[in-house]
């Protein structure tokens, strides 16, 4: 009896962990809806959530006959965001791995990166437009990539280089190769750093992708759609596009969070990703 009670309380606290954000979210949206219903301002800036969502669903329901503007724009902007994110991560991690080879390289490149990271990279967008073509997705990809590259590089390099010197000494005492040290000391140490950066840049990349669309790129994009809706004073439309963008951002953040949880679950070995992948796909690679 007592045992069941405690099991219930354990279950309750686990449930609460997941429910708390949900309850708070529902509460927030309800307050928003009710407050606007009561004070009833003109349809300025902040439409009611129900208006926004009905607009969004209305638009998305036209996906089947290919007339959904939001869906088409999401595909355009999403492609730019994901490719920019991908290459930013690849280059960022690659450069971070590179600077672990030499102390001098690390001490030269990291301060430069820190300084560039303090520069509003979005301001470079017109330059890229000039170089790569105003309507080409390339320039937008480049901006997203640069925006992703610097935090990933700086943080990952920090994780790869700021390792416990005793661990390195221990590995050296085993006459371990540089590669072995990288794999068994540096990379495990850097993983939490990397994921922290990843969680930071995932939402950043959607904001960047939308904002650079003010300067140029496809007319069929989220940024262009927001501008167009706003200029027609169609605010619930503009907001529904904003919501679509943030759903994408949340999705990316969630992917980053899940990858982090899986990788850092039991130990910090990258092999866990493989195991997780095998579990997900049900595949095994022999014994």
């Amino acid at each position, binding site marked *: 009896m007592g045992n069941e*009670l405690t099991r219930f309380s354990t279950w309750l606290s686990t449930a609460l962990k997941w429910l708390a954000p949900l309850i708070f979210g529902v509460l927030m949206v309800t307050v928003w809806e009710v407050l606007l219903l009561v004070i009833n301002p003109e349809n300025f800036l902040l439409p009611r959530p129900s208006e926004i969502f009905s607009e969004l669903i209305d638009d998305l329901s036209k996906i089947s006959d290919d007339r959904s503007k939001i869906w088409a724009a999401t595909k355009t902007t999403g492609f730019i965001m994901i490719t920019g994110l991908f290459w930013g991560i690849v280059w960022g991690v690659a450069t971070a791995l590179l600077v672990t080879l030499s102390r001098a390289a690390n001490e030269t490149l990291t301060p430069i990166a820190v300084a560039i990271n303090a520069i509003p990279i979005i301001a470079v967008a017109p330059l890229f437009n000039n170089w790569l073509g105003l309507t080409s997705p390339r320039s937008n990809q480049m901006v997203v990539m640069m925006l992703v590259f610097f935090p990933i590089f700086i943080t990952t390099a920090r994780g790869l280089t700021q390792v416990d010197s005793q661990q390195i000494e221990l590995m050296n005492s085993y006459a371990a190769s540089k590669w072995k040290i990288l794999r068994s000391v540096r990379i495990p140490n850097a993983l939490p750093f990397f994921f922290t950066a990843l969680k930071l840049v995932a939402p950043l990349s959607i904001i960047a992708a939308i904002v650079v669309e003010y300067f140029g790129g496809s007319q069929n994009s989220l940024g262009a759609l927001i501008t167009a809706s706003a200029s027609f004073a169609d605010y619930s439309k503009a907001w529904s596009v904003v919501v679509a963008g943030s759903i994408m951002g949340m999705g990316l953040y969630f992917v980053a969070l899940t990858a982090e949880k899986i990788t850092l679950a039991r130990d910090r070995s990258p092999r866990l990703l493989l195991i997780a992948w095998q579990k997900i796909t049900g595949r095994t690679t022999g014994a």
Partner: protein
Amino acid sequence: MEVVSISNLSKIFNTGKDNEVEALREIDLTVTKGEFIALIGPSGCGKSTMLRLIGGLIPITSGELSVNGKTPTKAREERDYGMAFQSAGLLEWRTARKNIELPLELMGWSKAERIKRANEMLELVQLGEFARSRPAELSGGMQQRVAIGRALSFNPALLLMDEPFGALDEMTREHMQDQLLDICHKTESTVIFVTHSIPEAVFLSTRVVVMSPRPGQISSIVETNLRAGDNTADNTKIRNDERFYKKVTEVREALYGK
């Protein structure tokens, strides 16, 4: 006069959960004024838990426990005791003197009084010229002395110490033991002192309380009292005295359950 009285005390963590731990079972102990009690036992026997119970930092599960005739929480709120931990636990952003002033600030002392008392305490622990140093600039032993100065700063009649010298080297440790005894005699404090070291327990205490693990119980109490009330006794002499070794052996046998 009874300072701490414990009867039939038990402590269970995470009652009713999967990770339930019975930390202490049926503890009976009375500490009178001026005593120096050493708590010794293997890791995980609940020594630190007992200290925290006396300090009112965690609630008891069953039994009775009073400090100066009050509940531990009340005693804590009335600042009846000072506490010191294994790591000095100094605030890194405060100077040595400001660290000692911390409890006094909380008690609403005026600035002039605080500075006066903190300087006295620094003299007491022989760190007079380090008043303006920050913890990072002090050695481990010096930090620990500041922490002890902090614990003593508001004249608590009772000191609760959780392995305060555990992280020090042997020479510093003996020096600190001498100083602690000296301070305690001057201030007539009652001390409950958790330690891992048998010689330390024997040397410092009037009584050594030996505990056994899982669940923590008092397995025996060894009367040491090597000074027999004589506060001027020569510490080196006591450390080399045959009685000291005998008591060490006695405590060791009690610990191994012979």
